[in-house]
Structure formats: C-alpha cells, structure tokens
C-alpha cells in the first residue's frame, strides 16, 4: 500500500497537535495550586487533572495538567495551559467559550479583539469539527478549566 492513506488527516493532526500530543507542555502537578479539577471522558478513557495557580489579583499565574488521553485531548490541554497563563479568569472563560464554538463549527466569529492572538494559537484544533465524536476530546480541557475556576468560587478573589 502507498504511504498516503491518511494524508487528508493532516488537517486534523497538524504537526503542532502531534507535537503537543507527544510532548505536552505544562505536564506536571502544581503543588501550590489554588484550584484543581478532574476531567473525565468515561467513554473515551481520557482523564486529566488540572492545576491552576492564581495571582493575588485573581488572574491566572500558572496552569498545568496531568493525565492520559488521545493526542487531541492532550494537545488541547497543553495548548490551553500555555495560552491561559497571565490571563484574567474572565478572559480564560471567554476563550473557552469561543474555543468550544471553534471546535464544534470550525469557525469563530467572536475570536477577534483582545483574544485574537491566543485564539490563533488554538486554531490548529479547529479541524475536529469535522469529527463529531472527537469534539469532546478537544473541549475536555476547557470544561475542566471551568470546573476548576467554579470550584473555588467562594474564595475567588477580585476579578
């Protein structure tokens, strides 16, 4: 057989994704995390634990994760933890909302403005919209981030 059987899948598995999937960034436990949450796709076997460290003013100072899962879920968590660092919680949630739209539809009408550069970094994952059963792999990290940010709402510092 020729080598090209899966060539058209390079849209989904772009080099960035394969790279982040193989060598996820921020792949560690944060012992001094202020917020943590677990994300689980029981059907797929994707599992992750997310750690968020908040600065005194409430913005995300550091983010990291550990877990196991497919290339898409690992790459998404890797890219997410990279991009939300230094953002306010509100910005991170807005990015998450727009990322879910991007993953489901492949386009993101609201991705301009102050988050434009960050959304650009997440764009390689937009290919999942062609694979309905894989969308949740890409969005798991963002759901987990929301859960982490919600989890400590009572102690949430100023936003």
């Amino acid at each position, binding site marked *: 057989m020729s080598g090209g*059987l*899966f060539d058209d899948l390079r849209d989904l598995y772009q080099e960035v994704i394969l790279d982040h999937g193989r060598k996820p960034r921020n792949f560690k436990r944060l012992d001094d995390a202020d917020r943590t949450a677990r994300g689980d796709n029981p059907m*797929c*076997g994707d*599992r992750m634990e997310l750690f968020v460290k908040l600065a005194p003013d409430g913005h995300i100072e550091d983010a990291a994760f550990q877990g196991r899962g497919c*290339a898409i879920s690992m790459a998404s968590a890797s890219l997410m933890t990279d991009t939300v660092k230094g953002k306010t919680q509100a910005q991170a949630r807005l990015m998450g909302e727009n990322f879910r739209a991007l993953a489901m539809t492949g386009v993101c009408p609201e991705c301009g403005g102050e988050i434009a550069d960050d959304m650009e970094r997440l764009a390689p994952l937009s290919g999942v919209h062609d694979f309905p059963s894989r969308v949740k792999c890409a969005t798991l990290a963002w759901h987990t981030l929301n859960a982490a940010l919600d989890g400590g709402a009572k102690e949430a510092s100023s936003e």
Partner: protein
Amino acid sequence: MDGPIAPWLNLDAVRADFPILSEKVRGKPFTFLDSGASAQKPRQVIGAMVRMMETAYANVHRGAYHMSEQATEAYELSRVAVATFLNAGDSREIIFTGSSTNAINLVAHSYGRGVMQPGQAVVISEMEHHANIVPWQMARDAHGLELRVCRITDSGELDLDDLAAKLADGRVGLVAVTHMSNVLGTVTPAAQIARMAHEAGAKVLFDGSQAAVHRRVDVREIDADFYVFTGHKLYGPTGIGVLYAKGALQEVMPPFLGGGDMISEVSFERSVWAPYPAKFEAGTPPIIEAIGLHAAIDYVNAIGMPAIEAHERALVDRAMARLPQIEGVTLLGRAQDRGGVFAFALDTAHAHDVATLLDRAGIAVRSGRHCAEPLHERFGVESTCRASFGLYTTPAEVDLLADALHQAREFFR
C-alpha cells in the same frame, strides 16, 4: 475475495443479504469491524419486521380478533424458535426482555434479591461487561449480598482455581459469568463452570451476548440455570433480549416489573401472578422485535452454526497471523478458545486516534473501554481499539485492518 474462505459459507451471497455493506464511507467500501457492539441486519430480518407491520400487526395476548391472534401466534412462535436455538427443553423457559442488560437486571432482582438471602454471595469475573457487574453491585447494596470477583489469567482465561476458591465456603448462591468476553474474545468453559457451581450449591448464569452469535449454544448440555443474549448482536433488531431460565427457578422467582400481561387476577387489594414466563413479561412486549429475532435465528440457522464457526475460525487464524506481526501492536488476551473479537493497543497512538485514522480508511472499529472498565484496569491499559467479526466479515477485511494499522503507527511516529 482473496485468502482462505471457508468453502461452506458463500461469503458473496451472505454479504449481498446485508444492504448496508454496499454503502460507501468517504468514498471507500464500508469495512465494518464492530459487530461485537451491534451487528448489521440482513434483508430477511428487515423484511420480516416490515411485513409484520404491514400485514399482521396488533397487540398480543389482548385481542379476540384475527390480527391480534395472528400477532400472538407469531410472537409465541418466536419464543419456540429461541427455545430451539438454545436447545431449551420447554419454550416457557424463554423470557423475552428488552436486551441482555434487562435480562441480567431481571435475574438480579427476581433471583438475587427475591430468592437469595442476605449474606449469600454472587461470583462474577474480571472480564465482565458492565451489564454483568452493575446489577450485582446494586443487588449487593440493596439486599446485603456479597460480590466476589473471580480472577482471570494473564492470557485472559477464567482462573478456575480461583473460581474453586471463591466457591469453597458454600455461601455462593449464583455464579454469573460471561460465556464469551466482548473484549478478549475468550470463550469460557461453560459446562465446567456450571458443574463447579452446582457442586458448590450455586446456580449459574451465563452472559451469552457474544457467545450466542459465534457458537452453537446448548443450555441443557452446559446445564445453565440462566442464559442471556441480546437480539441486535445476532443480526436481529435492537430492543429485544432473551433470558433462558429453568422452569423450577421461574416458579419460585417473584416478578421483576409489574403491569399488564403479567397477572392472572388484579384487584386493588392484591394481584395474582400469571404463570411463567408471562409473569416476567409485564406490559406490551417487543412484538415486532420478536418477529425480527425469529427471522435472524432462521437466517443464522439457514447458514448453519458449524459454517459460521468455521468461517470465524478462519478469520481468527488470519487475524492471529497478521496483527501480532505489526510492530507496536499489543493484543489483549491470548486465550486458547477464542472467538472473533480482538482488543489491541498501538504504542505510538491512543485508541481514539487510531480509530479516527481507521475510519478514514472506511474501517469501523470501537475504541475506548468497551463497557469493561475493570478489565482494562486489570491489564493496565487506559483504552484499546477493538475489531470484532461477523458472519459477513472477509479475510480481505482483516488484511485491510492490518495494513491500515501499520500505516497508522507510521503516521503517529
């Protein structure tokens, strides 16, 4: 079609019976290797169900008019066909349910909670489908039963020494184990398990959801007390399952669900249960589905279980010759007695990524944990892909899978 095809099974003719097999997936032939999750349906089944709805449909057991009598007769004939299929001695030993899951839940309620005493134990195994785990956990928690889990060996076979140990104290009321694993393909030695259970004073239930599709099942020969299977994996419709239960057991079991058809007398003070199996078939049953199941059994019988078994053996041999040869592929389980179900992991990629790639080649496999999470834990793997064969699977499809897996590994390197 190249490769060794069992001469006794006309594969081209069989495939022509399944309309969906001529569908294309992204321009490629549809290579369906997920029959273990649910099998495709032949025209004969589809036709029988449509014919029933177009010409002979009414509710059963309820109308003193022609159509209802006809529907009732067809429904009861399906029961007879199932009894013959399992070689049950009496068609009243066949209870129609909604699925295997429903059937096991029925036993867990009516026998587990209704007949067994708190303090008695149920033995399951490490390779059960969730359908044969969770109902027993629920019965344990509600009724004070003990749940024991029989180990399996590293090759994926039931550890019979451990079964003997689990049975030794005589407190086991029921052994409930699979007759064929939906992940490892392992076929369990049912007759021997039943003998061991009976010698220890326990009853035995076999989850035949996979086995009944691949092997001739004789409930009297193996001496099963309960035997369960599900219509949609046997080339029949969804929404119908079968519980074989010995008459003497049905006699002492209280009903599971209450409603119409399961009573012989109802007043506001009390109800009198109908004789079995009606006692266990509350409400309007899956009538059209029973007709479809009958057609599926007729279809399988017309091809013949020996031919189906031989065809599958050829596919298993082919898969065993090809899959372990692919670098980076690990097969789960190496049972001696096995059917056409293969779970595997690839070293460079997660099961989901592999499944997405295979889908591009038109190949449908399942990925994840296949409703057997504890089993994956037992083998220390997060998830696997699973290829499972049906009577329409060709040796060329097995080759296609092997070639695609090889390329998938390269893709992710």
